Each structure stands twice: as C-alpha cells, then as structure tokens.
C-alpha cells in the first residue's frame, strides 16, 4: 500500500484481474497465488496457455512456482537486491523505456547512478540467485511488450515491506509497464473486502478515499456532514493497539519523530490540543471481525495487553479466541445475512444482498455500529445500506459515482468512479500517475530484523493453506474443510529433518525467542534447507506466538515472513496420537 502510494500515488491494483490473461510476461513475487488467490491464478494459467511466460520469485517451491518458466528461489528477505539486480541488467542491456522515463517519471538519475554502482556478485551473495537466472529473468521481463507484476504478503510482510514494493514499482516504470492495459503492478488483497476497508479509511491516518486526516479541508467536509470534526492526528496502528505500544521497526527503536502519530503534514504533532499521548496505554477496545489473539505476531504480548484493558468488546460471527476474552460480544451477521458492498482486489465495488435472515440475535455491522453510536449519544439514522452508500459518494471523490442502484444487476464498478455518468476505471494511471509523475525510489538491501544464529538456526516463514481462511473462525466449522486439513503442519526440508532425526508425521516443537509451539512435521521439498513453513489457522498451534513484532517503519506491517527458530522433536510425546 504505502510503497505504491509513494511511487504511483495510489495503493491498489493498477490492472483489472482479467487483464492478467492478456499479459506477455507475468512476474509473481511473494504470492502463493494458487492457494491464496485462485481467481487470479486461473488468469495466469490462461495466460500461460496463450503462450505467456511466467517468472515466480519465492523462497518456496509453491504450485505456481512449479508452473513457472523461471523460478527464482531467493533467500528470504532479499527482494530488494534481487529486483535491483534485475533492473541493472535491464539497464545494461538497453531495455529501459527511455521515453516513458522521460515523460512520466522523476528521480530516475538517482536510481540509475545507484544501479551503475551495484555489484552483481554482491547481489548473488545476498539473494542466492545465480547470475544466469537473474539475467534470464531480466531479459524476459525487459523485452516483454506487456508485463504484469503480481505481489502479495511475501513482499509486504517484511521490515522493508514498503521498500520492497517500491523496487517492484521501479522495475515496472523502468520498462514502461504501467499506465497501459494488460501491464502494471498488482498487489493482491487477501480478503474479500480489505480493499474496501482501506478505501473507507480503516487506516490510521486516512479518512475515506485516502484523504489524509491532516488535511484541514478534508476534515471540514466530513465535519459538515457529521456535525463533529474528526481528530486532526492519525490514530494508532494495529500493533500499537493490540500490543499496547508501537512495535520495533527493523532499523532500530522508533524515535518519537518517526512514529506515524507525529508525521509531518500540517496539523500533526503531539502538541495538538486534545491529542492523546502516543505513549499512553489504550483502555478499551472494540474489535470487529478480527481475531488478533491468533492472527497478530507475538501473541503472548497481545494476550498480556488485553488483560490490562478495562474493557474489550468484540463483534464477530462466531465466538473466536478473541471474542471468548471479551467483556461484551456482539453477534454479527455474516455476508449472506446482510446488505451492502464489498470492494475486491481490483477496486471493484460489488453489491451484496441479504439471502437469509441472521440467526438468533445477530445483527448486521451497520445495525451494531448505529446502535452503539446511539448509546454513546450520537444517533445515526441510516435507513439502509444504500443510504450509507450515498453518504460515501458525497464525501469520497473516488466513490463519487457509486450508488447501489448503479451496482444492481451488474458486475459492479471499479473506482475511481467520479460521478454518475462515469463508467469506472479498469486500469489506473492512464496518461499520468495519480501523483503526477511516477517517482523512482532508491532502496538498498535491508536484512531481516532477526537472523539465524547458533541457538535459532532456522528461518520460519508463515502463510496460509488452501482449505482454511485466516484464523479459521469460519472454515474450521466445515466438516469437509477440516477433513482436508485438520492438523497444524510444519513444512520441513527433508535434509533438515534428517539432521534432527525427525520423521514425517512426527510431533515437533518449534521455539523462537518469544515462545514455543507444537506441530506435526511434514517433510517437503517445497521449502529449501534452512527454512520451515507453517500457517496460522490453528488455535491449537498458534504460530504467532513465535513471530516477531518487528515491522516496516512506514506501513507498520509486521515481519510475519521471517523469524529465527529452533526445531526439536516434541520429546516424551512420541506415540501420542495427533
């Protein structure tokens, strides 16, 4: 998000999903596309059937990596030098799109000078990707007429996540692969409506439509509609709320001037009247549809912080691990039990209609929020979700032409959609970038926050499996999905398993500086030696007790993808039934 916002001016997929099908070269980075985004993967398959070339960058040999023409199995956390290396080869081979760079971008010389000095031998040392492979990838991507980059959490969930995205954006701009159909840079959003949540201002420093809270004019517009002025300073980040403090960023402790609460931009700053001291603890939390007691890094820290709260309210469709700790639980309606909209990864706003009535006392999120607001002395009298949408259109320029009646009976509209006549926008940045010119940002290798040592000799990578979703609060209620994937598995390379005399199916204990968790071993060539891979769907093996809160300084996204661990047989438990 933040990475694309700084370079292009807008943090969303620049293409539509079906454009991927027409690309000549597809570069997939840090995305287990087949398991996490099957609807995108099917376009990649279709593109391959039509002769497109596929490059996959991933430390693991995932299904999509097996399908690839070229799989670059980089060392975890070495995305920046790898992409820089690709760009250097492209530059050396004269494959850069000079006209595009000249007309549409800025700060190119800084990047060029940096790349001239870059030593490819050093890149090899940092990434583990052989120079010939790097060259092949660079030529493939650089020579393509239309190339698409798809990336996911494998790129962003690092201490250098924002910079990782920026270098991918650089690569696209260097070759002129943005601002046109079938070419672009596409962050794949993991949840049906995470794009919508961001669009609606579920970000610490943004009002709906990416209007910064620090912009007095934007605040005025909302104040006029709501009768109260929103705070002029950014709210806290997710980890600051769930851990009760700002997490460490990879490059040392956060200084006060670094914290997002004190970002420049006019009205920010701790001296703002009424602004709470960022160091002060949070006393009460309302959590909607999230399960931080399973999904957040360093779970012990979260649990400790929740115990310190005066009050915790949770709204969810099932009694999750987090809801079970709450003082008050609001039973919420699920997607099929309410009206409204979801905005998917390609910025497409789609209407959903209630198909069945919510069970028992469950209510839609809108009803829950409105009732709560009423109790707090601010009545919200929206008659329907459609009426809320009208307010969104009024206050959020990119949603300016999106109304329920326009969405009904079609496949929705892609923002930006400025007014009722606007047909929506299949791909972004046509003719000019949202921020004017695309900005090349130079980035250097930043090692992961935690590296291996004698005590913790392995790297742990976390992710998802196909059959479960997030913390399993929905999928683990399904008999068939549970049968497909019932046990928390840890993928271990057979060589690492042999060295520890671990057999497939055996119980193993994984230990990091923050905790220990038991899994069943799955010996797999999908992970390279030195790396293990697990998922976070299982409450009985809460892998996030191990992960670190070290996070990207700008986007505040934690480094879920790398932490140092040690692996042992779960002693004394042999023969115990799983």
């Amino acid at each position, binding site marked *: 998000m933040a990475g694309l916002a700084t370079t292009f001016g807008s943090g969303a997929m620049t293409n539509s999903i079906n454009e991927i099908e027409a690309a000549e070269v597809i570069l997939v980075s840090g995305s287990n596309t*087949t398991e996490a985004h099957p609807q995108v993967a099917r376009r990649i398959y279709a593109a391959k059937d039509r002769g497109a070339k596929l490059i996959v960058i991933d430390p693991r040999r995932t299904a999509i990596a097996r399908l690839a023409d070229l799989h670059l199995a980089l060392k975890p956390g070495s995305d920046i030098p790898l992409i820089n290396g690709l760009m250097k080869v492209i530059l050396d081979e004269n494959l850069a799109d000079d006209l595009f760079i000249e007309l549409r971008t800025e700060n190119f010389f800084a990047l060029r000078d940096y790349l001239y000095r870059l030593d490819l031998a050093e890149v090899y040392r940092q990434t583990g990707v052989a120079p010939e492979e790097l060259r092949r990838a660079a030529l493939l991507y650089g020579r393509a007429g239309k190339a698409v980059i798809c990336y996911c959490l494998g790129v962003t969930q690092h201490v250098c996540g924002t910079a990782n995205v920026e270098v991918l954006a650089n690569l696209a701009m260097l070759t002129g692969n943005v601002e046109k159909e079938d070419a672009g840079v596409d962050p794949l959003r993991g949840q049906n409506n995470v794009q919508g949540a961001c669009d609606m201002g579920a970000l610490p420093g943004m009002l709906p439509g990416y209007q910064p809270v620090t912009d007095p004019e934007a605040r005025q517009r909302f104040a006029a509609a709501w009768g109260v002025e929103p705070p002029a300073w950014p709210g806290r980040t997710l980890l600051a709320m769930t851990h009760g403090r700002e997490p460490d960023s990879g490059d040392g402790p956060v200084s006060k001037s670094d914290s997002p609460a004190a970002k420049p931009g006019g009205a920010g700053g701790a001296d703002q009247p009424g602004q709470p001291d960022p160091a002060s603890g949070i006393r009460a939390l309302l959590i909607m549809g999230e399960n931080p007691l399973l999904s957040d890094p360093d779970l012990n820290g979260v649990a400790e912080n929740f115990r310190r709260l005066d009050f915790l309210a949770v709204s969810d469709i099932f009694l999750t691990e987090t809801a079970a700790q709450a003082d008050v639980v609001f039973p919420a309606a699920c997607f099929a039990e309410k009206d409204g909209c979801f905005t998917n990864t390609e910025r497409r706003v789609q209407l959903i209609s209630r198909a069945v009535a919510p069970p028992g006392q469950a209510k839609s999120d809108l009803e829950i929020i409105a009732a709560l607001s009423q109790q707090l002395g601010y009545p919200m009298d929206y008659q329907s979700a459609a009426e809320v949408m009208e307010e969104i259109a009024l206050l959020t320029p990119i949603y300016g032409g999106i109304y329920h009646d326009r969405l009904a009976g079609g496949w929705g509209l892609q923002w930006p959609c400025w007014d009722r006549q606007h047909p929506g926008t299949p791909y972004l940045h046509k003719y000019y970038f949202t921020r004017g010119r695309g900005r090349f940002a130079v980035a250097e290798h930043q090692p992961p926050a935690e590296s291996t040592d004698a005590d913790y000799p392995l790297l742990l990578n976390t992710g998802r499996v196909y*059959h479960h979703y997030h913390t399993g609060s929905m999928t683990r209620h399904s*008999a068939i999905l549970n049968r497909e994937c019932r046990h928390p598995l840890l993928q271990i390379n057979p060589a690492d398993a042999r060295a520890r005399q671990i057999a497939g199916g055996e119980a193993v204990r994984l230990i990091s500086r923050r905790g220990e968790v038991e899994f069943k071993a799955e010996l797999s060539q999908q992970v390279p030696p030195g790396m293990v891979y697990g998922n976070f769907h299982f409450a009985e093996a809460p892998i996030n007790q191990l992960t670190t809160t070290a996070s990207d300084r700008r986007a505040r996204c934690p480094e879920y993808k790398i932490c140092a661990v040690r692996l042992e047989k779960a002693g004394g438990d042999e023969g115990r039934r799983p």
Partner: protein
Amino acid sequence: MSDQYLLSRDHLAPLLRRLAKEYRLVAPVRNDHGDTMFQEIANPVATVPDLESQPQNSLKDFLFPQQEHLYDYRLDDAGGYHFQPPATTTPPTLFFGVRPCDLNAVLYLDVVFLPGRRELSYRRRRENSLLIGLNCNQPFADCFCAAVNAGPFLEEGSDLQLTDLGRDFLVEVGRAGGAEIIRRWPHFFRSAPAEERNRRFQLYLEARGGFSRQVHADQAIKRLAADTLPSGVWEELATRCQDCNGCAYLCPTCTCFTIVDQPQDQHHGRRLRLWDACTATGFTAMAGGHNPVQPGKDKLRQRFRHKLELDVKKHGRPSCMGCGRCVGACFGGADILHFINLAGR
C-alpha cells in the same frame, strides 16, 4: 418413442399452469442476477421458464441434494447411538425443460442409486417425479454431448420429449407418465402430421453440426482402456487443479458423498449426508495419513477414469454426459475437455 403430438407454443404456459396444480413444478428460471437455475416455480403465471439458456445446476440438486438429513440421533449415557429417521414428505414433482445431457444423467443416477433397497429417499423422489425433456436445436458454447452419445436429441428416458419447431413443439410420448398427461389433458395436444416428424430429423442433423467444439472423447476412452495415455497427462492436470471441487459438485453425474454428524447439544444431533468429491485430497486419505492418491501427481485420475473408463466397462457408456458445466466452472483448466484434449495429444 412412438406417439407424436403437436403442442402450440401459445398453449405451453396454460399447460404448465394446469400441471402445476398437480405437481411441484421445477424448471429453468432466470433470476434477478441473470443466472439461469433449475428451481421450483411456485406461481407459473408470474414466472416463465427460461428455455434459452443452460441451467447452471442440474437435477442432481433435487434428486440427490447437497445436504441430506439422514437421521436425528440421541446419545445415551453409555455412548450408544439411537437413530430416528426424520419425517419427510416427497411431493410429486414435474421437471420441465430438461436437456438430453441432464436427462441421461438422471438415468445414470438411477443406475447408481436404484438397485438394492438402501437408497430409500432417492427412490421415493424418483418414483414421484415426471420428466419433460427438451431437445437442443442449438448446443451451448461448452457442450459436447454428441461426442459421448448423450445428445443433442434424446431418444428415450423421458416421460414427454419436446422439440422446438418454432410455432409448435413436437411432443413425443416416452414413459408411462407422459401418456398419462396426454390422456388426462388431451385438449392441449393435436396429433403431429408426418412432415413435422421429418422436421424433427432435419433439426437433429442441424443440431449435430452446431457444436462449437470438436471433442474426441472416443479416443480418450480408447486410450484409457488400453492404458496408452501420453505421459505427463495426470501430472499436468494435478498441478492445474486447485482443489475447489466445483467440477464434481456441478456435474450431474458425480455422486461422491460423505457423512457427518452435526451435534445440536451434548446428547442430540443430526446425521447428514453431504456431497463430497474425489478431487479433494482428503477424500482418499486413510486414518493413518496414507493416501493412495498423490495429490501432486494423480489427483484427477479418479474422476476421469471413473467417468471414461470404469463406467464404460461397467455400464457400457461413459458417465460424462458432455454438459460442459465443469468446462465453464474449472479454475485451472483441468476439466474433462482439457483432459480429453491432453489424452489425444
């Protein structure tokens, strides 16, 4: 089919209205979202069947539903189960506008579920149903029924079989239920002159030429039987299949199921039968974790061998009816057409 009549297009709606008084009427209906589905028509005056599009679901949804409530159970203190079948009623149902592939699929379900006396609910539903078929003058985009001898026209199996002649439908009488309809409501039908019967044949020939795909199913069937598939076919399909089970759920002839208990409280619960699919890795996994099917290598072998090899041996015909549903649904291009094409490589 011997007796042939004409039914004027104008009289179709009144006929359905008449029949809906005696039967629960199920027919393809285009819904508000633009999808055509077989569904119950409560009010045939307000809802007209959509005979222009292929329904996304098949009659399997009705005869072998996705979720079947088998028993209510009670657990006694010693851990013993006591079962009680739920009270059910099976209304007589008339399925209207069934295409030849889907009708042949029902005949196949009969072969699976009717012999023996165990499948009582299927038998009850089937014995209480009438099938009015509709021949396909123009095959849909993904169809290949002709390649597996399941269409585009149906020779036998329905109660009444319609062919769209334009102003009229030609009505052929098949099984006893159809003759009964003609006997009870004769005023809707007039006997068909010879030239209209000849037009049926003409339309049939045109329909056979109307397929947009050339599908060499026999070759795949032969190669499966002789075990001479080109190498790498199963591996390629296994990498492409994304485990969604969509093909099996939509397929009118896929009949895998699983049985689960759904506890209501400590002592009571419901035993349900749910659709399942051999494309799911866990379907073949055994208790100890061993799996005779290696997901990375031969995940789709079961499905295609069952349809195009084992059923040919057992029943003399493939159990793929060429409806094309899995072709439109598959995420990865691992559908049966893709297999047939790979097998013919």
